[in-house]
């Protein structure tokens, strides 16, 4: 998924339907996953994606392209999703929000019992390059990844989705979330390590 070019923005401003369809298709998965970093319900997340596009369409003439189209759109997703979450949290306690951030660099992401007192592996991790491709691309594996991401603390979830699903640059993501580069990396590391662990439980 490449960065949307300036040409793409110009085409949208001209009202080019093929470009619009291409962009909404390409961004749908990452936008939906990002919305679900804030609102749990799949239908609500789909509403967030729709509302984002409706907001973007209305604002398109005024958008000058100082950031990339992609960064702009994902920024709107975050705003819309956060406001939806605030509305919902008045009705329903959102316990995941109460979890602490965990962006502590010293905290280990691999179970300490996997290492000897000296810090070497007790038993080596398995080589995943031996896993049959069919197993890696199976829907079941994808479901595990989804579930692992949904179980992350929200602050880790938003970072892994923006970086690894939407493939935004590290600097863009730190700016969007108003966090330091270091903090962004710590959250990303903890998120990736948690997903790896869940995959290991499944793949061996």
């Amino acid at each position, binding site marked *: 998924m490449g960065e949307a070019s300036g040409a793409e923005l110009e085409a949208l401003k001209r009202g080019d339907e093929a470009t619009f369809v291409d962009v909404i298709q390409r961004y749908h998965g990452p936008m939906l996953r990002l919305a679900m970093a804030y609102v749990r319900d799949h239908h609500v997340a789909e509403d967030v994606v729709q509302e984002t596009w409706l907001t973007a369409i209305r604002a398109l003439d005024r958008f000058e392209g100082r950031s990339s189209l992609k960064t702009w759109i994902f920024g709107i997703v975050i705003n819309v999703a956060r406001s939806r979450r605030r509305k919902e949290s008045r009705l329903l306690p959102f316990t995941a929000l109460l979890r602490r951030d965990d962006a502590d660099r010293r905290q280990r992401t691999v179970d300490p019992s996997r290492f000897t007192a000296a810090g070497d*592996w007790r038993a080596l991790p398995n080589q995943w390059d031996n896993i049959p491709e069919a197993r890696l691309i199976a829907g079941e594996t994808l479901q595990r990844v989804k579930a692992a991401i949904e179980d992350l603390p929200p602050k880790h979830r938003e970072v892994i989705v923006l970086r*690894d699903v939407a493939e935004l640059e590290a600097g863009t993501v730190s700016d969007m979330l108003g966090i330091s580069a270091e903090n962004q990396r710590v959250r990303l590391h903890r998120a990736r390590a948690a997903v790896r662990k869940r995959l290991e439980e499944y793949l061996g």
Partner: protein
Amino acid sequence: MKCREVVELMTDYLEGALSAIDRHRFEEHIAGCDGCRAYLEQMRITLSQVHRLADEPIPERVQEQLLEAFRSWKSTGRSTPS
């Protein structure tokens, strides 16, 4: 550098955020350690698995509704002439 520490540097390594010295030590360790090399590979596969979530297709109905909104903006709702 011990395996226990190396696993915590995986993301810094993949992000190119290690200092030249740490990067060298990291790579030296990885070259001689099957366990950490396997773990790094697992991290890379994890990233590609996470990226699969990007492929979720847009529902037909949603695409139609959005395209409708785009058309109506194009025909009536423009705030500036093109």
